[in-house]
């Protein structure tokens, strides 16, 4: 129960950080702290992750970002599934390899979020343009740069407050 509360608390803080960045009108390349924190908990304590909470956060993001209901939920669940499935492999990767993985996941997530489901045709040409691709790449780059910081901070947080060492 203790670990559950502390995990949700860190996810909530990450969400608030994301909201703050939006509020400060930082462009599309702003980092996604929630994504990084979610990845960390899936790696560190995969059995303590609650899918219901992920869906709830997904819905909050849908409301906040003006997306269709379920879009962010599917994205977060997909990331959770990938990391739950391969967390043993991912844990053994070097930090540089992890950074590359985070870069790719951030990139694909943003491209997925650009799909305009309300238009005819899955990939509407107006959705992904040159500027967006630059922003998306920058976003993925910033996320990957931040990953070691998030990883070390959350590991310290986990050891101090949750006390599970694996």
């Amino acid at each position, binding site marked *: 129960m203790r670990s559950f509360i502390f995990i949700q608390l860190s996810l909530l803080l990450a969400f*608030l950080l994301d*909201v*703050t960045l*939006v*509020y400060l*009108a930082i*462009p*599309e390349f702003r980092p996604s702290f929630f994504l990084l924190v979610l990845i960390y908990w899936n790696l560190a304590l*995969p*059995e303590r*992750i609650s*899918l*219901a909470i*992920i*869906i709830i956060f*997904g*819905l*909050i993001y*849908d*409301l*906040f*970002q*003006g*997306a*269709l*209901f*379920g*879009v962010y*939920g*599917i994205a977060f*669940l997909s990331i*959770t*599934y990938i990391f*739950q*499935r391969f*967390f043993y492999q991912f844990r053994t990767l070097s930090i540089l390899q992890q950074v590359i993985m985070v870069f790719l996941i951030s990139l694909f997530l943003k491209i997925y*979020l*650009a799909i*305009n*489901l*309300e*238009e005819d045709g899955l990939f*509407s040409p*107006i*959705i992904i*343009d040159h*500027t*967006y691709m630059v*922003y998306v790449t920058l976003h993925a780059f910033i996320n990957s740069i931040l990953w070691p910081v998030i990883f070390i901070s959350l590991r310290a947080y986990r050891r101090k407050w949750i006390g599970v060492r*694996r």
Partner: protein
Amino acid sequence: MSRDDHKVSNISSDAIFAVRPIGPLSFIAAFTFCFILLFLDLKNNISDSYRGYGHDLLNPIFKIIDLPRMVFEKSKLRFKEKNEILEELEERNKTIKELEVASLQLQEIQKINEELGFTWDSVLNKKENYFLTKKVQISGNSFNPLLVLETFKNIQLSKGSAVISKQGIVGRVSSFGSKTLEVMLVQDSKSFIPIKTSITDYHAIVQGAGIEREGKLINVKKTANIKIGEKILTSGVAGVFPYGYVVGIISEIEDLPDDKYLKVKVLFSSNPKNIDFFLVNQDSKKSKNF
């Protein structure tokens, strides 16, 4: 050691110290739930009914986020005032200082009044049908930007109400709660506005392409006599947007030989990032699809 904590060997009943991640069935259930939500929303637009209330719930978060900035600004102001009074003690007395502060505040009020005046002046007809409101924040992604405005309890709103500013048409109300309302901006890739050009009187539809991006005119025939720099105004067709408000200017016209229509780009006149006050039309016809 319980079975929930670790895998347990079926042969020896010893604990196997391996982490048991979430089972595939839970994932299937979660994905199914999300896909059902998505398809329901695609078909019935259920999110439009709840998004306004969602912003109501998120509103306190923005106030909390803004708190450190407000405290910093106030403390900075106090520190500045203190220093100024000390420096000017010999030259000016306290009353003059207070008058200066009052004057500054008056200037600030005057500035806001001017902006409000410009905003009100932008209404072309039936001023009583508009109500003035303030920006809460801009969210959403770059293709579907959302403007969140304050609203009041006694205001009768409907989906599709036009939102204008001193710069022209801003968008239309897409969802509303009790304290906030959400505006789909003209720059939104889902936004279609019937327009007419100011000089050549050519009727067309303008579609957004995202914030800080140029929009485009749809299905403009090659025979159209439109010019770069020409203003485009709302045509009032379909009754969603009132007639005659500035939408933007034509920034580029391209005549591609393999295309049936002209490729016309539009620079939108309104940029909600730079404006604080908006007017919402309460008289707009309910419209969902435009």
